[in-house]
């Protein structure tokens, strides 16, 4: 019986014993050079453990996690679909894994060919004229997209366009990216059906508007009913349209954002295209653009330097777009992630991608049909690949979405996204994805219904949840009030503090 006051698994530092090591390296096979003694460090506070200890430690830690591989993970807008293992093998092919990003392009034609093909496929899927694979994640793609829109207007000599319109249902990265680009945001309310309020949009559009950021389907899982009108209104006043592609899993093969008039959109390869989330990343957020933004794409693009002839494949290289906003990160984007996305698209083809979207939408609607009588659905519309319900009941005011989420853990499910979008109170955003079976959906629906019943009959069951997880409900307030971010205090405060910000 583990003492309630001991960790589930000791810290790696607690396993440390002086002199132990997990790996040996060979002695230098060259003559030694004198080390620069005045520059050497006196001590290095890293753990000293055997390799077996390391394996056990990290294995046991991993077993404390829920994951897609363990069970259902219906996080809205995260698209937690199965991560095919063959993609891991693909990314680890030595010819890909052991190449240096700055090698002469003649020596890495395989990688460049892969990147070029992926650029072309993403263009085709999104309906865009150009694609950059550089951004490292969705938010990174957003930043590049807004910077491109800003650069576009400045290049036309239009310095007055400083406003970006953003719906109140938008993901927090949208306003954050806007601020980072030096622009200001105007928040647009949603109407009663969950769409952008077209009247407000019309009155907000002016010659000061650089563009609109829109997620479609939006974070409620609903397709913008007036999307063509919205695009026209913004374009008519001279603004551009940025599409947040986080919800592309509902649209691949169904409709192309480029065809709807979007000027720039980021893809989330770690959502729509199955690359694994890895406990928080890496992601990859390529951007697609319409013709008018092509010149501004991030640096560099993969291009064909010499066309193929009968015997030889094309020769690939890099080019810098003529009015590029610049480099978004060092080197070549998240190459390993690109390999995984390539393998995924190659395995599905166009019809397969359409099938994925169709089944994602079917699964979401099916799941919704099973729970909508027990939970309030704020917007009475057909959802696409995800839906948002309220995690509360008027007659049980002390039960919140958080309690429902924690109780779901006791059923072996990862909770859905909580408290987002902000426009729904006690929101639970549920996205099953297409890779889940009907049995899983039925089991999840049953759990939600049982929890709804328990909320009314025995609410303590929810408030004391979770009961069956490695740790009980965690005190996040304490985590913020008493900050402990490092397990040692080797380096106390610098005795020579830097400037007081007030001066």
């Amino acid at each position: 019986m583990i003492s309630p006051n001991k960790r589930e698994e000791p810290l790696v530092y607690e396993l440390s014993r002086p002199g132990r090591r997990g790996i040996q390296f060979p002695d230098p096979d060259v003559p030694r050079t004198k080390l620069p003694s005045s520059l050497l460090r006196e001590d290095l506070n890293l753990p000293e453990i055997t390799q077996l200890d390391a394996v056990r430690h990290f294995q046991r830690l991993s077993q404390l996690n829920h994951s897609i591989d363990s069970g259902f993970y219906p996080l809205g807008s995260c698209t937690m679909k199965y991560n095919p293992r063959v993609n891991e093998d693909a990314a680890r092919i030595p010819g890909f894994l052991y190449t240096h990003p700055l090698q002469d392009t003649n020596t890495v034609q395989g990688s460049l060919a892969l990147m070029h093909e992926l650029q072309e496929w993403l263009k085709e899927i999104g309906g865009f004229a150009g694609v950059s694979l550089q951004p490292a994640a969705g938010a990174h793609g957003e930043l590049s997209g807004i910077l491109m829109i800003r650069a576009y207007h400045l290049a036309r000599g239009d310095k007055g366009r400083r406003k970006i319109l953003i719906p109140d249902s938008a993901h927090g990265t949208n306003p954050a990216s806007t601020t980072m680009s030096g622009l200001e945001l105007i928040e647009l309310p949603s109407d009663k059906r969950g769409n952008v309020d077209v009247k407000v949009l019309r009155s907000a559009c002016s010659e000061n508007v650089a563009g609109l950021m829109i997620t479609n389907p939006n974070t409620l899982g609903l397709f913008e009913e007036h999307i063509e009108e919205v695009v026209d209104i913004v374009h008519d006043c001279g603004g551009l349209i940025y599409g947040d592609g986080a919800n592309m899993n509902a649209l691949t093969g169904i409709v192309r954002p480029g065809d709807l008039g979007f000027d720039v959109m980021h893809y989330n390869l770690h959502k729509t295209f199955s690359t694994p989330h890895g406990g928080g990343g890496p992601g990859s957020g390529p951007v697609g653009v319409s013709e008018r933004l092509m010149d501004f794409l991030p640096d560099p693009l993969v291009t064909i330097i010499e066309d193929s002839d009968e015997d030889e494949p094309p020769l690939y290289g890099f080019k810098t777009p003529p009015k590029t906003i610049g480099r978004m990160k060092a080197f070549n984007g998240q190459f390993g992630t690109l390999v995984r996305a390539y393998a995924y698209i190659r395995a599905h083809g166009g019809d397969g991608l359409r099938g994925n979207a169709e089944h994602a939408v079917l699964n979401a609607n099916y799941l919704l049909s099973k729970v909508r009588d027990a939970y309030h659905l704020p917007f009475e519309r057909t959802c696409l690949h995800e839906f948002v319900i309220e995690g509360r009941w008027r007659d049980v005011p002390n039960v919140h979405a958080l309690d429902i989420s924690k109780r779901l853990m006791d059923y072996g499910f990862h909770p859905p996204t909580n408290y987002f979008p902000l426009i729904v109170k006690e929101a639970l955003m549920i996205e099953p994805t297409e890779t889940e079976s009907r049995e899983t959906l039925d089991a999840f629906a049953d759990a939600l219904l049982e929890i709804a019943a328990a909320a009314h009959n025995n609410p303590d069951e929810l408030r004391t949840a979770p009961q069956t997880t490695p740790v009980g409900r965690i005190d996040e307030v304490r985590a913020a009030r008493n900050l402990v971010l490092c397990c040692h205090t080797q380096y106390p405060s610098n005795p020579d503090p830097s400037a007081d910000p007030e001066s």
Partner: protein
Amino acid sequence: MNWSAPDDRRYTETDEWIMIAGDTAKVGITDYAQDQLSDIVYVELPATGASFDTGDIIAIVESVKAAADVHMPLSGVVTEANRDLEDQPDKVNSDPHGDAWFIKVKLHHPSKIDALMDSEAYAHHCAARNN
């Protein structure tokens, strides 16, 4: 649910209270505000001597799930900031109208306080937002 709104002070639409005591005024956030934020974990206060116009952001309050700006109800100069809140942010939850005052201010135009909401008007304002 009812939130307390003592009648010895005035209120803003953004949930600050201001109470004149002699030559200076005290400013804090209301019971409704602390309830919306839930457990406060951090308070960032302005420097003594800083001058603010009506509506300027004077402080930031953080909870686990939210962060909120605190606005200056009436323009003035900060004469004292309640540094206790930096070590004990939970006071904002337990005593928002008393111990957890944020700043003392020398107001530029003390008479303008009459234009702010009184206790009853503020109570309506809270009820209207919460359904």
